[in-house]
């Protein structure tokens, strides 16, 4: 899923899946997150962000 909007205070992100559908995702387990970044999301929680150097 791709981050569309971030609420860093609540550790939440609005993310879009491959079909463009939007979901609220918990980001507390990520060291940092940024809009446009792709996340691996499991049961509503981001457990990894796809490697930045690969994503670029």
């Amino acid at each position, binding site marked *: 899923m791709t981050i569309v909007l971030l609420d860093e205070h609540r550790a939440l992100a609005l993310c879009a899946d*491959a079909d463009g559908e939007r979901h609220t995702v918990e980001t507390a*387990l990520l060291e940092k997150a940024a809009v446009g970044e792709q996340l691996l999301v499991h049961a*509503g929680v981001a*457990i*990894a962000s*796809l*490697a930045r150097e690969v994503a670029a």
Partner: protein
Amino acid sequence: VKFVDEFRDAALGRAVSGEILSLVEPGRHYKVMEVCGGHTHSIYKYGVDDLLPANVELVHGPGCPVCVIPMGRVDDGIAIAEIPGVIFTCFGDMMRVPGSNGSLLDAKAAGADVRMVYSPLDALRIAKQNPDREVVFFAIGFETTAPSTALTLKRARAEGVGNFSCICSHVTIVPPLRALLESPDLRLDGFIGPGHVATVVGARPFEFIPADYGKPVVVAGFEPLDILQSIAMILRQLAEGRCEVENQYRRVVPYEGNLRALEVLAEVFELRPHFEWRGLGFISDSGLKLSQAYADLDAELRFSVPGVRVADPKACQCGEVLKGVIKPWECKVFGTACTPERPIGTCMVSSEGACAAYYNFGRFAREREVV
């Protein structure tokens, strides 16, 4: 789609398939276990096995979270769901897993308030919306899903949601792998390591496999090219006489895992001394329960549960399928009495179950070219 399309490239797939062919020693039969149910699903969805020579056999492991839940745990969940006033929440697959007297879906049909959720956070939301009801979440899954439950319990604590609790059936992947490696029934040459579990725990926990058992492990992603490449990497290790943990899924998996997730898991959960796995029996230190600090959110302490061990139906051979001893189509009830619409065993319930993967993608026993 970035990170998807490039890992489904047919020309590259054929090239890796050719590489695999070049690495295979003629006359030798290779058995490679894909630990994770997500891999099993991808292999049969994309026909990855059709790109392998016949003497490279994929053996399906115990890494489907729904498949390994024993019937007694389902009965425990149903007992709580049937308590008046309880809203019982679980993932969709879990609703169809048969207990000794039906499934959670049957309990729902009989009047219990059982609701499907996509995340434990949805269950917490239901609890906040229904402060006069007890809301219970049936937590299942490996280390991939456990952080989601842990964060939800932390949120429940922080927000003072007192009507929320969790029946915890989370499991860990290393103990059953060790049990399989100790099993005299199974001879394996290598392992495709579970990519998503490794996202959380890292690749390091799998080092015991080469160190203690002399088998290579390649942590792999879930697209067809990921799986093909991981098989090539295992075969290359074997061909070169090497034996180590390699990380094919580096775009997601850090070798040390997700340290924040591990911290949360250590805070919220502790190991059960024993946990029963379907088909594998009791395995020490393989299940998680809520730690003392979170015991007040433990549904097994808040409510009375039967906690009785229930034997699987005699006709069902999920145990042998989960151990990789038989292929799904070799089960006596596969595709006849047991189908995804009316499953007898758990392996036919979840899309990650080996039986469901074979059934849904029409993969049955057939001849392949022997090298």
